[in-house]
């Protein structure tokens, strides 16, 4: 007979002997942590009679109040254009210049989504390269900005639903950065252009069709109107 059966029989015998004529042992009582007792974090959260956990605005003012690491440099730090994975040791700290030094506008410059609405740039699935069919639009935006030096620009990057959420947030940012890079190459100062990615959070068409997907893969232009308009 195997070991488990031996142990089982031994225990049954002992327990049978024990249980004859004896009162049953009392149940084990497990006290659960109540309010005020120290316990694992998850339980003490539950024992707190929560009203709504309302976040305070501590340390989080909107707009330009905080712009770490931005020394306003306009030189773009290029990433490796040669393809393939990088091999170098990256534990050395980065220099202070951010490649994405465009302004982080606050609420003081009013938004204008209409003027450049017709120049929305569209992308291929899972790609961030600017198609040649879109070059004219980007050029038009560059011309507008040169003619209106008081205005700044936000490029919004968007994706269709077929990528996962955070992947699409990164892809949307890549699309916005690609547009920005092209604008800079056309002579727009980098400091005037900011990028925001919304991933797939803001589709213009929620249908699950190829047509809808192609409308959602886009870069939108939002002007931040300056004081002195020259047009």
């Amino acid at each position, binding site marked *: 007979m195997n*070991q*488990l059966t031996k*142990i*089982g029989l*031994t225990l*049954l*015998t*002992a327990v049978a*002997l*024990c249980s004859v*004529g*004896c*009162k049953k042992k009392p*149940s*084990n*009582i*497990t*006290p*659960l*942590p109540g309010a005020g007792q120290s316990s694992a*974090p*998850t339980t*003490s*959260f*539950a024992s707190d009679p929560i009203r*709504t*956990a*309302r976040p*305070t*605005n*501590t*340390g*989080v003012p909107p707009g330009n109040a*905080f712009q*770490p690491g931005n020394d306003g440099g306009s030189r773009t730090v290029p*990433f*490796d*254009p040669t*393809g393939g*994975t*990088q*091999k170098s*040791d*990256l534990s050395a700290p*980065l220099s202070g210049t*951010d490649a*994405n030094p465009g302004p982080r506008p606050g609420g003081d410059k009013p938004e204008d*989504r209409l003027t450049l609405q017709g120049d929305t740039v569209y992308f291929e699935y899972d790609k961030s390269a600017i198609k040649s069919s879109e070059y004219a639009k980007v050029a038009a935006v560059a011309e507008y900005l040169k003619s209106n030096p008081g205005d700044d620009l936000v490029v919004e990057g968007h994706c269709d639903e077929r990528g*996962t*959420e955070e*992947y699409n947030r*990164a892809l949307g*940012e*890549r699309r916005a950065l690609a547009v920005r890079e092209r604008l800079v190459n056309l002579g727009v100062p980098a400091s005037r252009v*900011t990028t*925001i*990615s*919304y991933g797939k*959070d*803001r589709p213009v068409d929620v249908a699950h069709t190829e047509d809808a997907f192609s409308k959602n893969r886009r870069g939108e232009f939002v002007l931040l109107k300056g004081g002195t308009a020259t047009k």
Partner: protein
Amino acid sequence: MSSVRCRSWYLRSMAAVLAALVLLPPAVAEETILIDAKTQGTIPIRLVGFPREVEDTLTFDLSVVGFEIVGPGKGQYEVRGGADPEVRGVLLEAGLNQPRFSRAYTGGSSRSQAHALADDIVKEITKHPGIARTRIAYRCISGARGSHNQLLSEIYVADYDGANAVPITQDRSVAVAPTWVPGRLQLLYTSYLSGYPDIYSQDLTTSARLPVAHFNGLNTSAAVSPNGTHVAMILSRTGNPSLWVANLDGSNPRQLTRTSGYEASPCWSPDGRTICFTSTAEGKAALFTVPAAGGAMTKLKTGGILNCTEPDWSPDGKWIAFTRASGEFKIYIVPASGGTAEEYSAGEDPCWAPNSRTIIFTRGRDPSRRLSLLDVPTRRVKDVTRISGSCSQPSWTK
């Protein structure tokens, strides 16, 4: 029998038992193989005597970790108990005269007592810890629209089964990608409340919130190291979305990747030494690892499966779950050292529970995405139906 005689019977019996145990060779420990090529069968168990809410709670807790609730005469195990009003339960096993245990619970709510009983049952039978008293964070589309007609999204925390849900943000903005600080009631998440995607840290006991990363460009995909000291995140401050690591408060950021593609969705190995993430450095999205202290990135072999995103490392270190985004989203699991990746369910964004057995993920399409629980060994899936609305991006307390 008088109590004195009863006690001496008891003592002599126990002495006999101890002697027998010493003399017997040691029993072989039962090792439950949690992930196998073959689907594991479920364990039939019967629940007797509990009021409806307690029985429902026990049913959910047990069925998500591989138990099947059965009727009379069919269970390998039976739990007899009640709640009068405190929950008590006796766990019986077919073929054994003596209960596996007999317990009663006090304090907390009836629901939390039921969860405690479920955890005890799971531990007693499977030898592994239960998850019935754990929590999740997630985000839900709120249904309202913002000033730019965008769909708004807020962060919530709930019990893992969706009960006791509490809103964490109420900014009427877009808050996404919540992640727990291990061992603490603290979340990091991405929010557009400043107008830009920034990473914040929020203490859930005080609601105090501080910025962690608000560089120009994208700040998102925060993942906290297992010891709670560092955060991995995706920043595009250098002109390309890349993997960075900083102290938990965002200080001392270091860039870990610099590729011609872009990176997303980092996760940590349980020993805190390695970060696994998605990169398009080689074309289609694939999984890579990089030492958290810096170094070369290495592709993770996934047996030819491409478009791999959203990796999550099991707490026991053995597995990486991820989303395959080739058309319909699917949950795959691959050994953490690479190898054959196996499909487990339609869905996306897997997050392991502390038991390294259960995965919470998202399934369905916008606008009705929902959270769901996968029991990996039995491959059974159970929706977290208590959470209504379009919710996604779950994170499990560790």
